[in-house]
C-alpha cells in the first residue's frame, strides 16, 4: 500500500465517522427545534386564549351591566344633587 492509498483510506474513515456524528447532531438539533416550536405554538395558543378571555371579561356590555347592577353606578347628569 502506498502512502497515498493510506491517506485516502484514513480520509474515508474520518469522513465516515464525521458523517455519522453530523447526522446525530442534526437529529439532536431537530429535537430541540421541535420542542421549541411546540412551545411557541403552546404560547401562541395561550396568548390567543388570554386575549379572548380579556376581551370577554372587559366587554362593554358586561362592564355596563356589572357597574349598574352590582356596583349601583349611574351616569352623571349635568346637574345633580347628592344626598
Amino acid at each position: 500500500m502506498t502512502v497515498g492509498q493510506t491517506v485516502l483510506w484514513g480520509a474515508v474513515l474520518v469522513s465516515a465517522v464525521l458523517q455519522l456524528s453530523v447526522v446525530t447532531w442534526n437529529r439532536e438539533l431537530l429535537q430541540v427545534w421541535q420542542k421549541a416550536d411546540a412551545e411557541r405554538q403552546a404560547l401562541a395558543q395561550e396568548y390567543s386564549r388570554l386575549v379572548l378571555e380579556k376581551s370577554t371579561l372587559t366587554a362593554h356590555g358586561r362592564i355596563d351591566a356589572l357597574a349598574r347592577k352590582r356596583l349601583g353606578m349611574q351616569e352623571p347628569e349635568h346637574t345633580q344633587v347628592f344626598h
Partner: protein
Amino acid sequence: MSTQEQPQTEGIQRWRFTLVLAVFALLLVVVGGRLVMLHTVEQPFLFEQGEKRTVRSEVQPATRGMITDRFGEPLAVSTPVTTLWVNPQQVDVNALSDVARMLGLNSAELKRRVSRAARQGRSFYFIKRQVQPELAERVLSKKVAGLYADNDYRRYYPAAEVTSHTLGLVNIDGQGQEGLELAFDDYLSGSEGSRQVVKDLYGNVIKQLGVKAVAEPGHNLQLTLDLRLQYLAYRELKAVVQSHKATAGSAVMLDAKTGEVLALVSQPSYNPNNRAELNPTSMRNRAIADLVEPGSTMKPFTVAAAMESGRYDANTIVDTAPGWIRVKNKAIRDHRNYGDLDLTGIITKSSNVGVSKLAQDLGPESIWTFFNHAGLGRPGTLGFPGEAVGAMPYPEQMDDLRLSTVSYGYGLSVSPLQLAEAYTSFTDGCRKPVSLLLSQVGQQPCEPVMSEDTAKQVLKMLGTVVGPKGTGQRAAVEGYQVGGKTGTAHKVGRSGYEDSEYTAVFAGVAPLSDPDLVLVVIVDEPQGKEYYGGEVAAPVFSRVMEQALRLRQVIPDAPAQDSWLQVAGGAR
C-alpha cells in the same frame, strides 16, 4: 491422532464435505439472489412502502388574522381548538360511551353512526369538531384506540352582537361568509404550510425531508371603528327598537373631519359565536345594505343648493301660504300654514312647500348636480359585500312633481351610511368619502359640494331644528351646540306609500362650532303613538351623541348658562 485409524472413511468424508459445502454455497447463492431481487426488481415497491410507514406529510394550519378596532381592541380572534375523529375500522364501539359522555354527545346515537361508518368501510368519522383543547386533552387521556385529534382554529367574536354585522362571520372551515370576513378573506386567511417528515413510533419527528410551503399567518385588519362608541350606539339603538317595538333600526357615526366610520350598528342583531341560532333577517347589515327614503333629512341639501345658486341667502323670504301647493295633480302639504318663512325657517319648521318652491326655482339640473356631488345615488365605496347603491332620478326623469318630492327626500333612496357621508359635507363644504379600514383613511380626496360659508350657514340652520322652535328638540345635548334634521318617511308598501308605516330618521352633526361627529339614526316601523323622527330617532341621537362627545373629550361649546348658578343656589 493418526490417519491409519480410519482409512476406510476417507472417501465418504470427502463426499460429505463437498455436499455440506455445496449446500452452504447454494444457500449463499439463494440469499445473494434474494438480495439482488430486493435491491433491483422489488426496490421501488419496497421503498414506497417504507416511505409510507415512516414519512408523513404534515399540514400546518395558518392562523387567521385578527380584526381589531382603531385602538387595537380585538373584535375577531382565532383561537386553537381540537378536532376529534375516529377511524371506525380501528375503534371498539363500546369504548366510545365514555368519550360521548365527556363531550356531551348522545352515546347510543354516536355508537350507531360509527358502526354504520365501519360497515361502509370508511376510515374517517368526525366525533366532534372544535373542542376546547383542555377537554380534548382529557378525552385523549382515556387512550381509546382509533381516536385521533387534529389541530384546528375557531373564530371568536368577543364583542358578539355589537359588531356582528360589520365583521360578518366565517364557516366551520374558517372561510369568510359575510361582511368583512368575506370581503377580506384572502388578506385575513394567510396560507397553510406543509412539510414532509420522518416520524418514529411515538410520533416524534426525527428527520425533516423537505418543506413544501412555510405556514404564513394571515394579516391583521385594523378598522376605524371605536368599540366604545360602537357599543354605545348599539345599546341605545337596541333600547329604542325594543321600546317602540320597531322592526329594525340602524345607526352610523362618522368622524366629521375624515369620514372614518366610528360606529356602524344594526338591529335586529345576532350572536356570531352561536351558529345554531342564525337567521337571515337578523344578519342583514341594515346600515349598509338597506335603502331608505331619507325624507326631510334631504331638505338641508335643497336649501344649500339654493344658497349656492347665489340667488338666496339665509334670510330670503319664501311665501309658504296657504300651507300647501298643487304640483301637477298632487297637493304638497305642510303641517300647517307657516306663512312667510326665511330659509332658516324652512329648515326649522321642515316646510315641504318651502323646499318645493326652492326646487322649482332651481330646476332639476342644478338639484341633480348638487345631490350628486353630495354622493346621492352613487355606488358605495367601502367594497363591502351587499353594499347598497342609492337611487336618484336623472334630471330628464324629473318632472315638476318628482322634482318637488326629491327636494324633500321622497323618490330617491340612500343607505344610512350614504346619508351620514352626505352630512359630512356640512363640516366644511366638502364631502368626505367613508372609510372602514384604518389604512385607507384619507386615501380618497374629499369632494367639494358647497362653499365653506354655505356649510357654516346650513349648520346654523340645523342648530335651530334642535332649538326651542324646531322639530328635533329632543336631539339637544346639554353643554354642546348640536344640529340636525328630523325625517319621517312613509314606507313603501304594496299599494304605494303606506299610511301607518313609517321610517323615523334623524341625521345630525355635533358640535356646531367645530364639527367632530356625524350621526344618523334610523328606526324602521316604530309602533305606537310616537313615530316622527323627532320623537323616535332624535332622543337616540341625543343620548349617543352626549356620551360619544364625552368619550372623545370634545370641549363643550354651548355658551355658558346661568342655570349653573341657579341650580347650585337651589341645592344649597
